[in-house]
């Protein structure tokens, strides 16, 4: 097996809580991203998806655990090492409006990472910027313009061009299409798939939208209350979800097909997500799980292999 681009082991990120108890935003998460692979991270609001991706790009410090990028440990690394590794990992955020400096021309924004690191300047830089703009479906003459002259979809293209400038090994995307209109979402999804295929770049793709994740990812990790509950190849996850939460999540996605949607059995998941500053003991899903037993209320299920999947549920076999 080839060495992973990213290896996350037992990552925890706790924030100071309002009431004293820490917010356990991420609480012991492990996964790896192989070269050329896109790993999806899904789950509902507040489950810790963004915190994981923020930790991977170094925006929040881990409370515990290890983060290795191309084999280099980030926790406790020297500044110089971090700086070097950071160039290998780039991020695309949800909101293309706040991700771009309104006073910087598109060309300057896209070329900045190269200029700052002294990798290109002058004519060479301009040529590189033109190439990057073309790669994301924009035109070289767009380099002279400013972000406000572009629509949301085009701005997201600019953000992606900038993220690609340093030829990163890993692209981290946090809800890259959630802020876009439905009619331009497809443009950006097509671009992301094209880039995967053309560049063979690995990526970590965070989204709350299961259909989007299924469309662009090779493997999928499902998060609930700061932990992974299931990690599986895409087709296995969608064809045969193992964890009761994955099943409930899939059943709740309204499909844009009235015949199929109305024929679906309705098994609405009761209740709400508990607070991450006071997670339930044992399996944190037991407060909403229709299959919970005494064991679930006491013992934390570990993520273990089952068929092609990894699943954190005591009773996964009997549910199959």
């Amino acid at each position, binding site marked *: 097996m080839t060495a992973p681009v990213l290896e996350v082991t037992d990552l925890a990120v706790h924030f100071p809580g309002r009431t004293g108890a820490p917010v356990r935003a991420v609480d012991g998460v492990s996964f790896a991203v192989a070269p050329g692979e896109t790993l999806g991270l899904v789950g509902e609001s507040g489950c810790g998806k963004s915190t994981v991706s923020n930790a991977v790009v170094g925006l929040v410090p881990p409370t515990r655990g290890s983060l290795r990028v191309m084999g280099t440990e980030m926790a406790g690394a020297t500044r110089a090492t971090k700086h070097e590794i950071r160039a290998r990992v780039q991020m695309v955020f949800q909101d293309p409006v706040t991700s771009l400096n309104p006073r910087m021309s598109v060309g300057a924004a896209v070329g900045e990472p190269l200029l700052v690191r002294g990798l290109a300047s002058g004519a060479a830089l301009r040529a590189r910027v033109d190439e990057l703009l073309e790669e994301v479906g924009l035109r070289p003459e767009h380099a002279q313009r400013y972000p406000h002259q572009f629509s949301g979809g085009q701005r997201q293209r600019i953000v992606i061009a900038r993220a690609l400038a340093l030829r990163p090994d890993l692209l981290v995307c946090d809800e890259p299409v959630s802020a876009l*209109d439905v009619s331009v979402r497809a443009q950006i999804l097509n671009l992301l798939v094209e880039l995967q295929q053309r560049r063979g770049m690995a990526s970590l793709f965070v989204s709350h939208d299961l259909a989007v994740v299924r469309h662009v990812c090779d493997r999928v990790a499902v998060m609930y209350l700061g932990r992974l509950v299931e990690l599986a190849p895409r087709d296995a996850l969608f064809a045969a979800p193992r964890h009761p939460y994955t099943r409930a999540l899939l059943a709740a996605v309204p499909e*844009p097909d009235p015949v199929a949607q109305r024929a679906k059995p309705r098994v609405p998941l009761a209740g709400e997500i508990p607070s991450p500053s006071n997670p339930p003991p044992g399996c944190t899903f037991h407060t909403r799980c229709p299959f919970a037993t005494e064991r679930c209320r006491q013992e934390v299920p570990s993520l273990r292999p089952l068929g092609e999947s990894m699943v954190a549920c005591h009773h996964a076999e009997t549910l199959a």
Partner: protein
Amino acid sequence: MTTEPALIVENLSLALGRANLVDGVGFSVAPGEVLALVGESGCGKSVTAQAIMRLLAPVIRQTGGRVLLAGQDITALPERAMRALRGQAMSMIFQEPQAALDPLATVGTHIAEALRRPLRDVRDQVLQMLAEVGISDPARRIDQYPFELSGGMCQRVMIACALISRPAVLLADEPTTALDVTIQAQILDLLRRLAAERRTAVVLITHDMGVVADIADRVAVMYAGRIAETGPTAQIFARPRHPYTSLLLASIPRLTDAPKSALAVIEGRVPTPAEFGPGCRFASRCPLADDTCRAATPPLRDMGDGRLSACFHAEQLP
């Protein structure tokens, strides 16, 4: 449908300065029916709902059209009379339930206010309504404040406020957009059940075709301030009669299609009101557009199957 519509909107037009935001929009909703008003951000869905409630921002003017509530023209009603209707004969719920609730008022106070009675007089009725919208432990929740509730629970409280006076019409503006899918499924089930039981006519505003497929009886697709197409939900999804609807449906990734396959793309972007020309507003992005389309506005035409389409070339669609 033989029952008289609970709500009729006729030829509604709205303007912001010279820009024409909404142009000749019309639809009707029968008691117990759910009509989805779908479209992308800025297409005029929310201002249409605000115009029906007469809650438009002062900068937006109604330049034409009528609103009929149970057959009565309410377009020219004085503000006093409108105030008597709002929350009584027609109610509205919003995307951000937390923002719509007063942080200093308890759940019970909010709902009693919708009945325009002091809470102590209507406590039992409020408790029953809380149970009906699926709030567990109503006796405890009734005295809680909005910050003590999750987003899903706040939306249930909003629905309780909106429906306790048994309005004929409920306008729901993206009521589940801010919620998680598992909570969204709960709220959609609740809306469907209450609309059926109480015979409430519901106008559901959304940009999510999945939500439309789940709950709507009929659909009105809006594009750039106009209705592109309206009709029964099943027909709109099975065989769209407007290029915009058809491309929109093809551009959505589905749980059933081939992963990583190229999605249909609608080139360009939605025009802003300042860019509206004389012709079809979809012409700049439409693969079927020709000179006819750019010269004149396509009228809504009867397609003969309960459907209206505003496209000159609807017959060319597969």
